[in-house]
């Protein structure tokens, strides 16, 4: 399942989406909103997306991961709209027969997502705001 949503992300949904009888491992990555950036105190954060393209890119990331690693299933969800400190902004779940593939594929998926998927983050600080670009 691949989605961009304004709803609160569900770890239970991610876990359930990738569980498979032949898989002995599920790796889960959760990106959460941090209260600081470059020494500044973050007071608010908001994500926006090109939803249709982002969901297509999620599917492409999953497809590439499936080809590279032996995986059961891949789940990627990203939240948009205003988020609070500590909220989950992205959830990736990957299942595989053994743990090494699930962990490696999950790490690779979040790295690729950060570099390619059309999502944007705007952070508000005490006394200013900033769009955060690639690699942050």
């Amino acid at each position, binding site marked *: 399942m691949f989605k961009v949503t304004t709803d609160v992300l569900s770890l239970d949904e991610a876990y359930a989406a990738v569980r498979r009888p032949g898989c002995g491992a599920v790796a889960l990555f959760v*990106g959460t909103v941090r209260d600081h950036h470059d020494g500044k105190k973050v007071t608010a954060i908001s*994500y*926006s*997306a*090109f939803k*249709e*393209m*982002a969901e*297509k890119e999620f599917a492409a990331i999953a497809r590439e991961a499936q080809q590279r690693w032996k995986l059961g299933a891949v789940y990627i969800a*990203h939240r948009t709209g205003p988020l609070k400190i500590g909220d989950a*902004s*992205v959830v990736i779940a990957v299942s595989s027969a053994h743990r090494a593939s699930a962990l490696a594929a999950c790490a690779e998926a*979040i790295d690729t*997502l*950060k*570099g*390619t*998927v*059309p*999502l*944007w*983050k*705007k952070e508000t600080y005490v006394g200013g705001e900033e*769009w*955060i*670009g*690639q690699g*942050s």
Partner: protein
Amino acid sequence: MKVAVQLFGPLAEQAGRTRLEVTVTGSTVRDVVAATGLKLDPSIRFALNTDYVGGEATIKEGDVVSLIPPVGGG
């Protein structure tokens, strides 16, 4: 030919809009971008409908060109 252009993130904020329509005589994404009159940083990528493309990609009536500033998901 009329082509829709979508703006996102900081670009949309700067332009005060998320979508505009341009009339182009050329046939590439680069022609569409030029017709917007926007001054774009080299870091801006292009998408034709829902795929990343280079400026040389060919457009047709009804296509949507998107201007993609550096992404910041995660």
